[in-house]
């Protein structure tokens, strides 16, 4: 296989992997620290110095016993899942429709859709709060999901649009020629083609939703409190290692999920 860089230079070939490893170390330094600290038997939450005080599982036990914390984790996951599903539907639908048809002022529409990606979260949060108050919608699960979807679905749309840019037009034609209705053609031919973009966009939407604080703060109520809200109000008063425990589990969960997907993919 031809090497992409002309006249291989050993220095250049070393540089890229070395640089990438250095960057990964930088990215993981705080992660490793917070995971290690979740097992650190720190006696007081006022100590910012880096000391190991002995191994303990007490933070995990405390986390499990903390109903507010566990409730917020549950809320976060539910909301993120709902947000991902709705974002995928809206994002894929919008991308496809804008690709299939030429709508008037398509450029303007495009900008409008991408606007929530751009607007700072606090502005989105406050203006949505004002809107919900104006239309009389009470804060709760629904408002949080709406708020999240509004800035998440453009990411799905952007990913799908990029993928659609490379689609072979003959694909849809072929499906229609074979007697399928446009809807059938869409689901059995187009969607599978778009799947990598849908998954990528959906993943991004999910990730954005589980860490979203600002917009949530203005649109939630006590029964829909999410983990970021809890973290924001608790993490600021000293070390809260139960939060480290939760974060560690999130990381572990993600790693397991990735491994599972890799396994399933290689099985095919």
């Amino acid at each position, binding site marked *: 296989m031809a090497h992409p860089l002309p006249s291989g230079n050993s220095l250049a070939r070393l540089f890229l992997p070395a640089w990438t490893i250095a960057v990964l170390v930088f990215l993981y330094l705080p992660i490793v620290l917070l995971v290690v600290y979740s097992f650190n038997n720190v006696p007081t939450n006022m100590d910012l110095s880096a000391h190991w005080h002995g191994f303990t599982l007490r933070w995990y036990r405390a986390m499990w016993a903390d109903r507010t914390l566990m409730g917020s984790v549950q809320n976060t996951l539910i909301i993120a*899942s709902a947000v991902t599903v709705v974002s995928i539907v809206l994002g894929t639908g919008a991308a496809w429709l804008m690709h299939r048809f030429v709508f008037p002022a398509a450029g303007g529409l495009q900008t409008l859709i991408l606007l929530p990606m751009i607007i700072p979260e606090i502005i989105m949060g406050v203006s949505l709060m004002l809107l919900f108050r104006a239309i009389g919608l009470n804060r709760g699960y629904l408002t949080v999901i709406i708020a999240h979807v509004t800035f998440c679905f453009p990411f799905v749309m952007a990913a799908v649009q990029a993928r659609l840019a490379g689609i072979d037009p003959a694909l849809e034609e072929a499906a229609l020629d074979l007697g399928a209705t446009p809807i059938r053609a869409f689901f059995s031919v187009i969607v599978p083609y778009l799947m990598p973009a849908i998954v990528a966009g959906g993943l991004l939407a999910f990730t954005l939703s589980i860490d979203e604080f600002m917009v949530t703060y203005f649109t939630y*109520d006590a029964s829909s409190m999410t983990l970021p809200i809890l973290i924001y109000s608790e993490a600021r008063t000293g070390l809260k290692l139960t939060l480290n425990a939760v974060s560690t589990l999130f990381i572990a969960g993600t790693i397991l999920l990735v491994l599972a997907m890799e396994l399933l993919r290689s099985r095919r």
Partner: protein
Amino acid sequence: MKHLHLGLIVAMILSLAGCHRSSQKQQQRLHLFAWSEYVPQEVIDGFTKQTGIPVDYEVYDSNEKMLTKLLSSPGHYDLIQPSEYMVEHLIKRGLLEPVDQSAIPNVGNLLPEYRNPEYDPGMKYSVPYMAGTVGIVYNSDKIKDPIRGYQDVFQPKYAGRIIVLDDNREIVSWALDVKGIDINDVSPANLAKVKPLLADWLKLIKIFNSDDPKPQLFSGDVDLSVVYCGDAAKLIEQDKKFRYVLPAEGAHRFIDNLCIPKDAPDKQAAEAFINYILRPEVSKIISDKFPYTNPNGAARKLLTPQQLANPASYPPESVHLEIFHDIGKANADISQLMTELRNGR
């Protein structure tokens, strides 16, 4: 097929949720909107166990945040926890429901000096929760010179070793105290008088932090501070090298109260909660966790001698303390002044 996997995962997560949403329909429920880190979970759980009323606890970390959200959620909250100046403001705007004292017999546990506050005579709309002061904490291992007031703290030799509350009105009030001006007389003329002093002070401050100055003090990032007495008390509990001083130039006390907003959906539950936390054994739990000044005389009898001897929680009676009043539009003037000073470097 990839979308099958995605669907499976989504289904798994959703199934973890169970019937979470259904629980909140017909029964009584208390919507508590209070300061974060101020109402122990033990107290909330105890209330629910005692009365069978579940509690929704939303948090805020400033009186203004509380008001902003309160205004956009009419008929949502049963209890709020404003500070004294905010109680004044809320009463002025007719946003509070009178508290039926016959429904809270435990109110008799409050010490007499708290029963008739200037901001709400006769406790018509509010019931004191916890009080406290803002004062000076310093590390006596590192600071050997006497510290008696703000001017001792804000000396050039202590540059880069000071942490203060990230609260513009607080900082301005300290400067007003030094100049002998009433802390509630925030006129443009008075602000101009303290501006140079503030400019000098800001240069010496290492950290602005309202969330929690304790880690920085404990870890030695800073050695001097002007902070809430509750934080000071906790530091003193950890290590006796920390000392608390009420500034000689003048200090102010704050009193946080429980109030019932107008249109509260469940006034009875709110009053039941107030009555519950006025119980001495419950109030003691709050004091154990958040060592501020407890206005509940019956609760004080249950505290340990060490707790009562903590000078940050229970300062000597002799010092005269003012309180903040509602200053309305002058808040914006303070905000403008401090933004100018803090950004113009």
